[in-house]
């Protein structure tokens, strides 16, 4: 027995340590949730008003529930991260798609949470949320009474902007994506049946009479029409990726919305780089899109420019917008998608870098205050 004494001592110690650890472990009661290593400064002490600046809509990772909104405050030129969380003590949800300003409200489409969060702009506090969608994609205002929302599954939802509810659904056979309003007509791109291969998918542009909420016509487009803008000459531009599987060469269509005919097709080389994020400046004379780098193209051009105005240099450009007043280019870099992204601001004429901002996870869209 004598030889066992040190062992018994060791065991006693181990038991004591274990019991001690149990109690330590039982003390922590704070909920275990995703936390930033460097918590952003507390803004509740000096409240920020989101009057003058740029909202960055950070998509977040699919099913991780880490969508967020960052705000570049023009007065101080600083970024405030995760303003929705700060104002509401809860996360925004899963996969934020875009934000639209309507009067004193911000309407944020949260795709995989199947809702639109309505916030009051001045403090970003949640006003209400609109639910009943299936994978909502984009929202387009029609007038002061209603807006349309596209979705991945089917049906365009009609939103009553006075009550923030879905009042009606316009039947569409398949996935609808981006929208542009022209003279009481909503032009909506449709990718085709989500479950089918690109070969079988029918990509088209639906034309909806916004007064009666009925589809009146449709135009065939290239595969995956993911971008739409209207220029100063009242021409409609539709950007088609050609398919995520490189099914066909990407293309851009110039459409006359009155005659409902495709005037011109710009075809891209099928070189593995898909064009995306078609946007236009506020004077509506120059369109922009990402194709690895950022391209700039006057609406009068007869062909696609051969070189980008901003080279990617290996960066992963993801979101793009043109500042409505100063015309500078805002482009996001998502890095490896599993960390916070960055925003670069470039001068649109010289292409020089003006600013770099930190954003949230997968910055995808911008929304400028008026």
């Amino acid at each position, binding site marked *: *027995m004598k*030889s*066992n004494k040190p*062992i018994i001592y060791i*065991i006693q110690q*181990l*038991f004591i340590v*274990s019991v001690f*650890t*149990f109690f*330590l*472990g*039982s003390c*922590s*009661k704070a*909920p*275990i*949730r*995703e*936390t*930033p*290593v460097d918590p952003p400064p507390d803004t509740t002490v000096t409240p920020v008003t989101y009057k003058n600046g740029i909202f960055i809509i950070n998509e977040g990772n699919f*099913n*991780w*529930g*880490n969508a967020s909104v960052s705000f570049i405050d023009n007065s101080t030129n600083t970024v405030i991260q995760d303003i929705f969380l700060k104002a509401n*003590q*809860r*996360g925004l*949800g*899963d996969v934020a798609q875009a934000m639209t300003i309507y009067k004193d409200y911000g309407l944020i489409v949260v795709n*995989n*949470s*199947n809702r639109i969060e309505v916030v009051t702009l001045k403090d970003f506090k949640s006003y209400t949320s609109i*639910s009943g969608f299936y994978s909502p994609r984009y929202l387009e205002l029609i007038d002061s009474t209603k807006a349309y929302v596209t979705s991945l*599954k089917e049906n365009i939802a009609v939103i009553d902007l006075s009550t923030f509810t879905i009042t009606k659904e316009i039947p569409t056979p398949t996935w609808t994506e981006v929208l542009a309003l022209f003279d009481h007509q909503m032009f909506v791109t449709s990718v085709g049946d*989500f*479950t089918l291969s690109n070969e079988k998918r029918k990509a088209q542009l639906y034309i909806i009479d916004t007064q009666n909420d009925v589809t009146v016509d449709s135009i065939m487009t290239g595969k995956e029409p993911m971008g739409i803008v209207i220029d100063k000459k009242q021409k409609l531009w539709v950007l088609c990726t050609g398919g*995520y*599987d*490189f099914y066909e060469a990407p293309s851009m269509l110039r459409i006359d919305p009155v005659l409902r005919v495709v005037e011109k097709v710009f075809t891209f080389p099928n*070189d*593995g*780089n*898909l064009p*995306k994020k078609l946007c236009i400046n506020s004077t509506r004379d120059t369109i922009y899109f990402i*194709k690895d780098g950022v391209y700039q193209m006057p609406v009068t051009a007869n062909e696609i420019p051969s070189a980008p105005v901003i080279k990617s*240099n*290996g*960066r*992963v450009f*993801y979101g793009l917008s043109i500042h409505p007043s100063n015309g500078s280019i805002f482009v996001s*870099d*998502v*890095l*490896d*998608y*599993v*960390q*916070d992204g960055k925003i670069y601001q470039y001068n649109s004429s010289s292409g020089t870098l003006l600013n770099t901002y930190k954003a949230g996870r997968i910055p995808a869209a911008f929304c400028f205050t008026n």
Partner: protein
Amino acid sequence: MIKSTKYLGYFLSVSFFFNFNWNSVAQSGKDTLHLPEFEVKSNYIFDNLGFKRVKLDSITLIPHINADLSTILTEYSTIFIKSYGNGTLSTPSFRGTTAQHTQVEWNGINLNSPMLGQIDLSLVPVSQFDGIEILYGAAGISRTSGAFGGVINLVTNPDWNNIAHLLVAQTIGSFDNYTTDVNAALGNRFFQSHTKFNFSSGLNDFPYYNDYLGKYVNQQNASFKIYGISQEFFWKLKDKHLFNAKVWYSQADRDLPPTTSNADSAYTEKLSDKSLRAVIEYKYVEPGLNLLAHSAISDQAMKYRSLLISSNHQPNTWINRIRFTYNRIRKLSLKPGIDFNYDWVYSDNYEGMKTRSTLSLFAEINYEFNKKIKSSLVVRDDIIDGKFMPVIPAIGLEYKPFNKINLQVTANAARNYRFPTLNELYWEISGNPDLKPETNYITELGLIYNLTSGNKILFLEFTLSGYYSWIYDMIVWTPVEGNSSLWRPENVRQVNARGFEIGTNIDWQILGFYLGLKANYTFCRSTNEKSIVPDDNIVGKQLIYVPVDNLNSTISLQRWKFYFKYNFLFVGKRFTSTDNSYYMPAYSLSNIILGKNFALNNFILSLQVQINNLFNIDYQSVASRPMAGINYSFTLKFSFIKSVD
């Protein structure tokens, strides 16, 4: 009752049997149906010289008959289990690697899907096996290539003294969770038949605080129904020939719960898994010589349904293994072998049927320099679809410095390869047929000490092992450059995984009490070592969802036919961004089991109460996946035992 101390020595001698199953035949046999007894035994398997192999015996598993494999590994092993919630996806991360680097086997039959290269551990019920053998790191090369983390082998064993064992167990738990297990083992000294049936179902609608909704809600759409049935026959002829035939069918129909940020969605997802495994095996044993041959079929069918997507997958594998052991040369033992596997897969996401044949040539040589120093060399070469892959070598050394003290130092080093899974190669549009195999270099140093007191009232075991490894060309699904909508597997990642594991195992009989302590602590730094895109700031950063610290410990106590277990887990923080700027905080969980056995002649009635998450910790293991707070279960178990003794 102290029993089986004799086989400590038996284990420490060079085992004539190369297979864990074999050793068990000579031991206490199938004790699932026995009362928990005080038993002095090492957790280590002293075979495969210089490599780390640990077992979890049936005694440990008995109170967990209603659990699944993920629970057992979480509570008793050093393997980190990433869980999406009770009854839903649970995957292992072993020594800082991914789920694809851990192979799970059932009696030597690979359970990992050839499509995904991994298995959902929540689908494997504890009641379907008798013990677990864990092969760490390079030890897995004796079974397969590519298991950089290791191999988890679930074993079933016959007890040749058994005449009749019957067991019926019913568990009723919180959230309408029910588990039923029925086992029957019948036979004599030459023939044994085991039949096992398990059924569990649950509504699983536990309440939790939903951060997005700002209130307590019940988990939606999380119900599951899992059942399985297996039949095994064991036949022994003249103590030289052993035959067995086993069939195991299991089915799981599960609703996939939404994330917390999507909790009010009316749209649902469903997953159905069916699997059939069948094996026939022959073993020939005589001193210094034995042979094993088995042939198995593993067929699976998986159905996924959501409003948008419906997809079906049917992976099938034919598995064959021959192993020969020859020990008649002094100081030398030779173990050549050959494996042949054939996979054929139908999937809605593949273009036509995809197949793969893998022929593996294998040899293990053990050499005893003297009584203190022993070594082993393992060489494996895979021939995939007729193409020779690089040779996988592993070398192990074992040193016992003292004659009277059970202290052993082990060291090993290996090079290993993981070949791409069929999804990585053939998934429609995204699959990348140009993938190279991942390469792993690993080295490991270990220390094992155990002691049995002279009067055999105390058994103590202490282990320490450190490892250092590199993974090159690791396959990761990354967005295709210039096309963020298309993600494709690429050989882009380089990982340095290193760490250490400490294990303690104590059994102590004092004042009529049986005390036990099992504890494991692991420290694991598994870091990205190569930048993938400019400015990504990932070099030197811990991989996401791999905790640096992980601890589990179980104290058990037995007296007056009462048994009590206190299980404590500490899971260190897990980063959720590759630049390590976000994390899930560390948490601790406590679970207790209290039970009592009532014995009358050959009948035993057991009543057991289990409390999980005793301190009602509000935690998420994976972001946005809610976990249950405090919950209870009550188990009634009835068994009848009749042995030859």
